[in-house]
């Protein structure tokens, strides 16, 4: 790869939300895990502390030399030996038992053989079923007849983040048959979208991309800030991230933009299950920022952001919950 281009400027360290958090000092940092680990064996032996990172891509996006830091981090994670973190072990047990990282609470399956599949992902089916129902109704009102299939399992993205490559590949094989039944796949999770595009080669669309150009309204009072999901802005496309703000503005939401809106909330990369304390601490940093800006709530477009920020006592909505089609 291209780690040799490191100029030791420290931009990755400055950009890292974990290193900049008081709870994050045990994380060896992106330079050790993403730049030095592939080159110097002794730097790679950092054990489970390599997992104290949300895979938010802020380091890679800050790097002046375009080093593929996150790819090296995933590589390091896949080579980790020793006992897994309890939260990550639970994820793998769930995958082995029923194919998703968390238990499924959703019951509104739609399996009538439509050509479009709405793929809510594990969190949408297990934790935030209201979000899934909102997106499904929104799709229906847009005239997009769709299935929500119980056969579609975890996309595998969270498994790659905890270094379980074999299990992720197994899920890809099992899911391939399900996806082959559909012409179009729509998701509401940037992590799933990225995985389907990059690993499955399916041109999955995030709900924001579906909503582009539609005549939408929102009945939201007050001022709303954004939680820009990492895997949306720095993974899928920064233009799609721009569209999140544009769509809400056009629908009549008073959107308050701020410099830290795209800082990681702490919910990604297996942090929420692996190191819940750090995930909370990062979420509290963001909440502090939103409270200072005196906004009434936060709108995001990622189930992990909704879940992690939602625990910190501020109103958090997904774009799928925030808007509806104009009458």
């Amino acid at each position, binding site marked *: 790869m291209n780690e040799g281009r490191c100029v030791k400027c420290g931009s990755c360290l400055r950009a890292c939300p974990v290193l900049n958090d008081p709870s994050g000092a045990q994380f060896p940092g992106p330079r050790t895990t993403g730049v030095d680990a592939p080159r110097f064996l002794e730097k790679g032996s950092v054990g489970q502390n390599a997992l104290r990172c949300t895979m938010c891509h802020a380091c890679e996006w800050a790097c002046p030399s*375009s080093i593929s830091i996150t790819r090296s981090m995933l590589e390091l994670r896949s080579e980790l030996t020793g006992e897994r973190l309890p939260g990550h072990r639970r994820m793998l047990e769930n995958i082995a038992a029923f194919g998703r990282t968390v238990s499924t609470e959703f019951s509104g399956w739609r399996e009538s053989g439509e050509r479009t599949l709405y793929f809510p992902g594990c969190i949408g089916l297990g934790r935030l079923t209201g979000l899934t129902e909102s997106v499904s109704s929104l799709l229906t009102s847009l005239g997009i007849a769709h299935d929500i299939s119980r056969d579609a399992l975890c996309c595998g993205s969270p498994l790659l983040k905890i270094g379980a490559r074999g299990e992720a590949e197994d899920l890809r094989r099992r899911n391939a048959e399900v996806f082959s039944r559909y012409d179009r796949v729509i998701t509401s999770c940037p992590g799933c979208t990225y995985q389907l595009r990059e690993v499955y080669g399916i041109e999955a669309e995030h709900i924001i991309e579906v909503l582009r150009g539609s005549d939408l309204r929102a009945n939201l009072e007050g001022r709303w800030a954004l939680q820009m999901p990492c895997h949306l802005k720095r993974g899928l496309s920064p*233009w799609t991230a721009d569209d999140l703000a544009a769509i809400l503005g056009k629908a009549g939401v008073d959107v308050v933009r701020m410099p830290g809106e795209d800082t990681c909330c702490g919910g990604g990369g297996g942090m929420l299950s692996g190191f819940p304390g750090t995930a909370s601490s990062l979420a509290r940093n963001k909440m502090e920022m939103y409270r200072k800006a005196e906004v009434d709530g936060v709108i995001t477009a990622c189930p992990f952001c909704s879940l992690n920020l939602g625990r910190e006592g501020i109103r958090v909505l997904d774009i799928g919950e925030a808007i509806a089609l104009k009458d």
Partner: protein
Amino acid sequence: MSHVLVIGNGAAGTFSSWLLARKGWKVTMVGRGTPGAALSTGCLRSVPSACRGEISEFLDNEHMPWATGEREGASRIGTSFRCWMSPSHTTWTDDEKPKSIAVAGLEGHPSLQIRVASALLNERGVRAEPFMLPGSVPSDVPLTSWFRNDEAWEELAEDLQRSSAEAILLPAIVHLHEYPRLDRLERRCGRRVLEAVSPLGAPGQRLADLMLSKARSAGTVVWDGRKVSALEVQADEVRGATIIGGSEARHVATDAVVIATGGPLVDGLVLDGRKIMDPFGRFQTVRRGDALRGGYHCTNGKLISTDGRVMTNTVGAGDCLSAERREYGSGLTEALESAYRAVRALEDA
């Protein structure tokens, strides 16, 4: 209204964008990665000749006042740093030179090496003593994480009461919007608060944040985290560009282009016939005393493609130009002046 694509989000890119947006151009600025300006000391070493007024207005900021003139400061290892323009807490004039300084920092943290810096300041005739703050932060962890809230700053103010020195030298840790903390700290502990001059840290980032916000508030559309992968050349004009962001690529049409991609850092752009080659992984090797050299050639501000055609609607600004030679460690003033010349060349076209 004509559309101009500015490639690069550093000093030359943001200043070009700011100037052009104020002249009524519709500006889109594309840039990726931390720019060289953010790795700098955040001070202007040399005096601008052509556009001092514009530079002062561009860098003016409500949170962080600037000081100009013949000024001196101390680096994070205590060596002397002279410049023309710096944030007010970073440097002093000969008359204001402090007689005694407490060099405050965390043991072992590279943001300010308190023992080395004290020793060198003493050699420079300033009575200096290391002042160790309680706590420990690993060297890879930014010190900003330690001083993130009001309580930490209050504790710092209380700790500093123990010193009898006339001034306190602190690691440069405050972000742009937090700069007034230094004034508050000064009032709170009743002595002068100075910050060490350091590259690769908060001062450069502060400057980059400031310039970006100025470009944006002048009306520039900022496409951050995106890079230009190819330019479309028709005869002697660049008419469009392919831009990559995340896993998406877009094509945009444009009436004019400012190339401000920098040179000293790897991953700059090189024009090759009809397209830009990128990335190149091309290192500038700099020997002691060498000047830094950029990549592109230009004539009267206009860029020349590698096959010798003069691009009539494309100009180069900053370190990407082979014509721009400067000493290692200088450069911000030169990058800004170069951007000013580039914008004038574009306006004359």
